[in-house]
């Protein structure tokens, strides 16, 4: 009890002091240095009307490649760690008919919605990551609703492998053509339409595929295979 109280005090103290340090900055008027330029020039420079997207895919695109790698890494590590795990659940209940039927009909719609999100990443507050997650959630729905629903591992591997590879390839094309990795070698295009943003939609589509297949792969690994299917 004393230990717990001590820990609470310690954490509270840490939080308090940190709050003091954090709130030293006057709130609501940040010292905008780089983002000022993004907001002022980003639209014309990159062609993406969603500035967050242009920051994610271009200005900080290298981060995003790393981010994709992190997800890939987690999927890999997870698959490695779970490998050989005895999934010996025998007493799984069957999903209800209502649920499985609903899932069946919702599944393509959710996939489409996911695709919509990552295709329009430069126009709406979406992008490859949420789009990919929505797609994976569609697969999750199927896993939940059908005990025997299967996703081919080969398909997932091919998708994520190629998506990742093409991502790097696009970066390398930029390096080759413009001397800079991930440089946008496509024109900004017609603003506010689907065909804008240079390489941004391209990359976001790849990310969507990659994230979708990776998250699905993670779910697949965690689901395991029970003896019925």
């Amino acid at each position, binding site marked *: 009890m004393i230990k717990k109280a001590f820990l609470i005090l310690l954490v509270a103290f840490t939080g308090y002091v940190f709050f003091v340090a954090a709130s030293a900055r006057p709130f609501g008027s940040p010292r905008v240095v780089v983002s000022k330029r993004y907001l002022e020039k980003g639209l014309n420079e990159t062609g993406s009307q969603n500035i967050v997207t242009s920051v994610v895919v271009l200005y900080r695109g290298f981060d995003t490649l790393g981010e994709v790698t992190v997800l890939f890494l987690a999927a890999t590590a997870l698959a490695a760690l779970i490998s050989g795990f005895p999934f010996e659940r025998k*007493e799984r209940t069957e999903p209800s008919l209502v649920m499985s039927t609903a899932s069946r009909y919702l599944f393509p719609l959710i996939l489409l*919605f996911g695709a919509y999100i990552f295709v329009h990443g430069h126009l709406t507050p979406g992008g490859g990551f949420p789009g990919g997650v*929505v797609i994976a*959630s569609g697969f999750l*729905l199927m896993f*939940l609703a059908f005990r025997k629903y299967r996703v081919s591992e080969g398909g997932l591997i091919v998708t994520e492998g190629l998506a990742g590879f093409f991502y790097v390839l696009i970066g390398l094309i930029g390096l080759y053509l413009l001397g800079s990795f991930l440089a946008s070698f496509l024109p900004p295009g017609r603003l506010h339409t689907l065909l804008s943003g240079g390489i941004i939609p391209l990359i976001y589509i790849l990310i969507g595929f990659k994230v979708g297949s990776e998250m699905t792969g993670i779910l697949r690994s965690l689901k395991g295979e029970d003896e019925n299917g």
Partner: protein
Amino acid sequence: MSAQVSGLIWIVYFMLVTAGIFLLALRFIFGPTASDRVVAVDGMTTVTTALLVILALFFRRVIYIDVALVYAVLAFIAVLAIARYLEGGL
């Protein structure tokens, strides 16, 4: 450009929804069973979805509706997952 919504409406709307969320939170906290909490969560997701759409109107940004849609999809699947977990179907 677009029509203004009366301030009173906002007040009424947000007050009611806030009160609702508060009640749901109470149910979530007091349970008593796990199912009760899931029911509270499920209710909350619907309320939140509505709230996101309303916020789109409040800020006059249609793009936020996409957010509401994503949220609705994910919340639905999450609730299903919890339900399946509860009945031992995972």
